[in-house]
């Protein structure tokens, strides 16, 4: 199949449906907690009591994450037409000026996600540091986009609004003040 990308009004409702289905199944929607579970499975319990938990109770969430990996593969290799992401021309121009020359012509920037990233130590370091911030931050905030922005905001919880504001403080700072200096040297 060669399907076009889905618009927001299809994607948002399906995310809400996923959350509702998990809640009605007696579980909850939260991906970043699986990072903790994975550390527990890998034996991190010897380093901190934070990882001493019964990971078997979280097995369903690991299975869910495994499903998302398969879903990504099915979409990329079977469903989705291999077209570039149609970006705002202003975004394309800004990225082109910062050396991301495939902006507007690819699904993901090759500098970070293409095979050439492996031979660029700075690209590998970028992904490692970025991932580190994601793991550290989501566990500190006790939730990520699924737990706070979707589940927490939709159940009208103040802590999740504070977390979501934090997401944007961090994201806007890096996008507007760090990446413009970082991307050109990638």
């Amino acid at each position, binding site marked *: 199949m060669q399907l076009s990308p889905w618009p*927001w*009004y*299809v*994607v*948002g409702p399906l995310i*809400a449906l*996923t*959350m509702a289905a998990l*809640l*009605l199944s*007696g*579980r*909850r929607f939260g*991906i970043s907690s*699986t990072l*903790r579970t994975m550390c527990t499975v890998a034996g991190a319990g010897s380093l*901190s009591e*934070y990882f001493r938990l019964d990971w078997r109770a979280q097995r369903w969430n690991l299975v*869910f994450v*495994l*499903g*998302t*990996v398969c879903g990504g*593969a099915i979409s990329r290799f079977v*469903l989705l037409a291999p077209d570039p992401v149609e970006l705002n021309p202003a*975004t394309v121009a800004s990225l082109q000026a910062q050396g991301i020359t495939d902006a507007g012509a690819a699904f*993901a920037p090759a500098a*970070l*996600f*293409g095979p050439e990233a492996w031979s660029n130590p700075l690209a590998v370091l970028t*992904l490692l540091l*970025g*991932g*580190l911030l*994601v*793991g*550290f*931050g989501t*566990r500190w*905030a006790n939730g990520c*986009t699924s737990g*706070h*922005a*979707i*589940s927490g*905001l*939709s159940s009208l919880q103040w*802590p999740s609004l*504070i*977390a*979501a*504001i*934090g*997401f*944007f*403080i*961090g*994201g806007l*700072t890096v996008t507007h003040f*760090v990446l413009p200096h970082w991307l050109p040297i990638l």
Partner: protein
Amino acid sequence: MVRFFLLGILFGITLTMGEVISWFRIHEMFRFESFHMYGVIGSAVVLGAAFHLLAKRRKWLAQGGQPLDIHRYSANRWTSYLLGGTVFGMGWAVTGACPGPLFITLGAGYWPIVVAILGALLGTLLYGILRSKLPH
């Protein structure tokens, strides 16, 4: 277990077909140059709120007769929500991936994301170790 696997597949397909896993889309979102991501998150939150409201009014129960397992975030940990959230947001802008898309991107075959996944596990480990020294 099969149900969670299938729901995972649906979620993975949804975020890939919606280009939510594209680094470009997240960059565009933080530049306020597209409505797409705001539409995605906004409509999910509004419909999710409708679900929570209905579930409360009609006293919906989870399968097995238990109440819905809605996580209640403790109100007195706002420092961790704000600071942790900010740290995560920085990583989101760098990798273009929040935790769900980290794994979905792997499935989509963009192999260098493995490095970001390892980074996220390392960050989680670091948090677990430093936890008692951090403000919450």
